[in-house]
């Protein structure tokens, strides 16, 4: 059995990855919406997003919409694969895979 992915296993990062994985592939999710889904503070969420971005699991896009700065996040191909492996690991622990 593969090792547990400790980057994804952290509770806030797990929620970020799960929220992004639920969307159609390649879909961008706004930071403000992700914050509501994950129920984390802005600073905390920002720090975990940076960790996931550095790991290559997510991509962050910054632009302007209606003259306001906007940050959007999407799951990378690498992140999608890592998350699927992580879920497989958990299921393996329960003997369901």
């Amino acid at each position, binding site marked *: 059995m593969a090792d547990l992915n400790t980057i994804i296993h952290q509770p806030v990062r797990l929620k970020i990855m*799960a*929220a*992004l994985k*639920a*969307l159609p592939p390649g*879909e961008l999710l706004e930071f403000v919406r992700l914050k509501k889904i994950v129920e984390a503070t802005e600073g905390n969420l920002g720090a975990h997003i940076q960790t996931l971005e550095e790991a290559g699991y997510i991509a962050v*896009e910054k632009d302007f919409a209606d003259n306001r700065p906007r940050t959007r996040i999407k799951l990378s191909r690498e992140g999608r694969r890592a998350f699927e492996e992580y879920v497989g690991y*958990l*299921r393996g*622990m329960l003997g369901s895979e």
Partner: protein
Amino acid sequence: MDLSPGQAAESLKEIERTQRRSVEVHDYANAAPGFVIWGLIWMFGYAGSYLLPNYGFSHGINWLWFGLVVLGITASAVIGRRQHRAQHPGEAARGRGIGARWIASLAAFWVFVIAVMAVMRPVNPAVSGAFIPLVVALVYALFGIWRGLRFLLAGIAVAALTLVGWFWLPEYFLPWMAAVGGGSLVLTGLWLRKV
């Protein structure tokens, strides 16, 4: 790092909860503009039917409603396409497909409604004015059962308000539907945007 089966099960539950919430928020955000558009169309349509009861009728067709429905379908398709483009930059071709699917879905709904009207032959326009919102309410409620409580509540509200107007305020049914029916859709759209 060691993980117990109990911790693994808890993590899987957390993933499921978060994914359900993510899909809900996604659906609410995408549906919000549609609720506002169709709420405004109901307002104009029902108000027009009340204030100008004979205006726009020709050969059994109510051109006021026909024009509003075409406008609503077009606006929904344009917004659906814009949303897709914003969420998937660089996928313009697929965005066109989303717009076409919106048009096809709404056209299918209206063809169904017109076919039912042709078979059932309502005795007066108010019957159609009550039937269509009840079908819309059913669609919202069914979608809500699977995809989000707020859609279910919107369906219940639209059905309840339609029936209240029909049974308790028959003389004012059309203005009631313009103000309360259309208004409730607009408010639902704004409520969904806030999620």
